[in-house]
């Protein structure tokens, strides 16, 4: 066994030790330790990924050398290593992008607690990604919930408190369903390790016993994890939790936490229940329908929303709907498209949140959409980031969102009865996405001395009125990373802290844009990773 195969265990332990160490140091050191160790974990995961890419097989890591029925197992394949690497990247960039807000939103002596929660969040997510044991997965789901709740309520205000309570209640319902589902599985199969459960489930399927309990269990686990990842109609906790917390939290919650649960669900589908058994159950249709309805309703809610961060939060509901629609198609291609959308959505949603925080800051802290007029001129980098993220969300070719939408469309062609709803939902949702994202994108490039029409009441009226001002902006200059590097320093205020902050912010935005363009243009390597990973996932 080569040394690199220790990476899954080491990276989980490293993230946990980081949490312990950060509790003993002051805020600024805590940030350095947290970000530094996350970069190291990302590097380790990349190393593991390159190793697994060469071998092309997954392997089982036996914790403490206790063999299968007694010991606990980790299992790593390409998909797991890729996901771990991606989570580390998103976390570092989110922390960089929100460093100014963390300093402002948190009381000075509490900053290190934020990084403890962030470390615990990463540790639990890595454990969810790598674990091969159902009950371990449950325990880390709960740790993840607690850490996420801490991240939401770190910004002390009455709104975040209410949001955190609402999040906890919904989450606990989800984990309760997951727990009883796991117990029923243990009851039926007598195992807790995922691979062993699958063997038993296959033999149950051949003898045709326990058909209804198995269906019930699949339903309980799927719905439990769907509640936690905010699938429509279980999304009521989401707008408050994403909308009012500090921006790093919003970015991490939308890009990492909900994606971690979806990854766990995919793992359970492939490794525990078996993709065929899952595709044969009715639960898959429910997820498909919820996904499609969520795509439309989430976007409609976003159009009605007047607060920028809450609007972006509602857009997450729509995007989670995309992923569940992909799972609901029930083929490897559909799941692959969903997996690609996990990456694409994480990259663009975190970018949009961080860019939005820059726009809000440039408008004197007002987060209503009407107040943002001209914010793209006051903070050019944030404006460019928002436009890039918005284009990716809408699905403009060249950006990450387009690649996954194309894959959804292609995957749905396999089954004729699925193709029509998928195509219609994609079309409607794209138009709705364009309405609310372009409304903001146009508004932030409207000079604020021009008298404004009511932005919410008439998006189309606005578009006509402001055409002349839009023409002034050169899209090429805005979109290419080279064009904006020069502007990185413009927002810098005097003082080295502020300069360091804006440098980190600029790095985060530029790297996020680069990540989006990479996922949009170099789709083949990522798609190959997902396809090869899914083959050995089960």
């Amino acid at each position: 066994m080569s040394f690199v195969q220790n990476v899954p265990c080491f990276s989980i332990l490293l993230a946990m030790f980081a949490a312990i160490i950060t509790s003993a140091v002051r805020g600024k050191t805590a940030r350095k330790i947290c970000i530094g160790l996350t970069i190291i974990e990302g590097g380790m995961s990349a190393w593991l990924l390159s190793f697994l890419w060469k071998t092309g097989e997954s392997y089982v890591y036996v914790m403490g050398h206790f063999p299968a029925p007694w010991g606990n197992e980790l299992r790593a394949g390409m998909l797991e290593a890729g996901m771990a690497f991606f989570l580390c990247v998103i976390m570092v960039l989110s922390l960089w992008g929100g460093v100014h807000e963390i300093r402002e939103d948190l009381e000075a002596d509490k900053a290190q607690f934020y990084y403890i929660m962030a470390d615990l969040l990463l540790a639990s997510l890595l454990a969810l990604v790598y674990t091969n044991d159902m009950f371990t997965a449950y325990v880390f789901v709960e740790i993840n919930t607690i850490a996420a709740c801490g991240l939401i309520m770190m910004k002390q205000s009455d709104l975040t408190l209410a949001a955190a309570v609402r999040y906890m209640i919904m989450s606990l319902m989800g984990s309760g369903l997951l727990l009883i589902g796991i117990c029923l599985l243990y009851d039926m199969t007598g195992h807790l390790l995922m691979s062993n459960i699958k063997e038993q489930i296959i033999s149950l399927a051949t003898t045709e016993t326990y058909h209804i309990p198995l269906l019930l269990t699949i339903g309980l686990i799927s719905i439990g994890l769907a509640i936690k990842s905010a699938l429509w109609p279980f999304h009521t906790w989401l707008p408050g939790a994403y909308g009012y917390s500090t921006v790093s939290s919003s970015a991490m919650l939308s890009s990492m936490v909900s994606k971690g649960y979806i990854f766990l669900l995919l793992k359970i589908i492939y490794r525990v229940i078996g993709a065929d058994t899952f595709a044969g159950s009715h639960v898959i249709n429910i997820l498909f329908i919820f996904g499609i309805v969520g795509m439309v309703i989430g976007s409609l809610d976003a159009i009605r929303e007047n607060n920028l961060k809450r609007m972006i939060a509602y857009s997450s509901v729509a995007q989670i709907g995309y992923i569940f629609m992909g799972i609901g198609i029930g083929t490897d291609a559909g799941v692959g498209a969903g997996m690609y959308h996990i990456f694409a959505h994480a990259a663009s949603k975190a970018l949009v949140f961080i860019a939005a925080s820059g726009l809000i800051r440039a408008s004197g802290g007002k987060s209503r959409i009407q107040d943002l007029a001209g914010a793209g001129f006051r903070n050019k980098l944030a404006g460019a980031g928002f436009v890039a993220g918005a284009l990716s969300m809408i699905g403009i070719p060249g950006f990450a969102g387009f690649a996954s939408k194309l894959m959804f469309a292609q995957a749905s062609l396999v089954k004729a009865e699925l193709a029509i709803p998928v195509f219609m939902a994609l079309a409607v949702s794209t138009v709705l996405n364009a309405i609310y994202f372009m409304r903001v994108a146009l508004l932030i490039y409207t000079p604020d001395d021009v008298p404004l029409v009511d932005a919410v009441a008439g998006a189309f009226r606005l578009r006509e009125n402001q055409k002349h001002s839009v023409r002034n902006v050169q899209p090429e200059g805005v979109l290419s990373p080279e064009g904006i590097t020069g502007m990185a320093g413009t927002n810098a205020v005097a003082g080295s802290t502020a300069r360091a902050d804006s440098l980190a912010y600029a790095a985060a935005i530029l790297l996020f844009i680069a990540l989006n363009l990479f996922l949009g243009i170099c789709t083949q390597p990522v798609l190959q990773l997902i396809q090869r990973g899914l083959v050995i996932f089960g």
Partner: protein
Amino acid sequence: MGTNLAANYVEVIAVILFGIGFTDLFLHKNLIMKIIGLNIMDTAVYLFLAAKGYIAGHKAPIIVDGVQSTSAYINPVPGGLVLTGIVVSVSVTALMLALTIRLYQQYHTLNLDIIAMKVKEKEE
């Protein structure tokens, strides 16, 4: 059907308790009641696990008098799961109670409907 239910009456009770707890957590307006519901729900799962691990006539899985045969003891794994679950539910309950205290200090009520109304006012 009826005989199955009668034979597995502990599991039936556990599932009914789970339903009560879940509904309480979902529908009750009062935060403290919700937390009680959460605890009923978790305890129901432990009852279910304990019932599944029990084998009539066997002893608790602690080796006494050098008897090592597996036929002498009940299944120890559900016991381990219950212990882990208790730790999780204690910490989650503690967090929820702490949140409830903070929420009460801010809004001076435990009724979630009233809190939601106040939040809505604040958003506008």
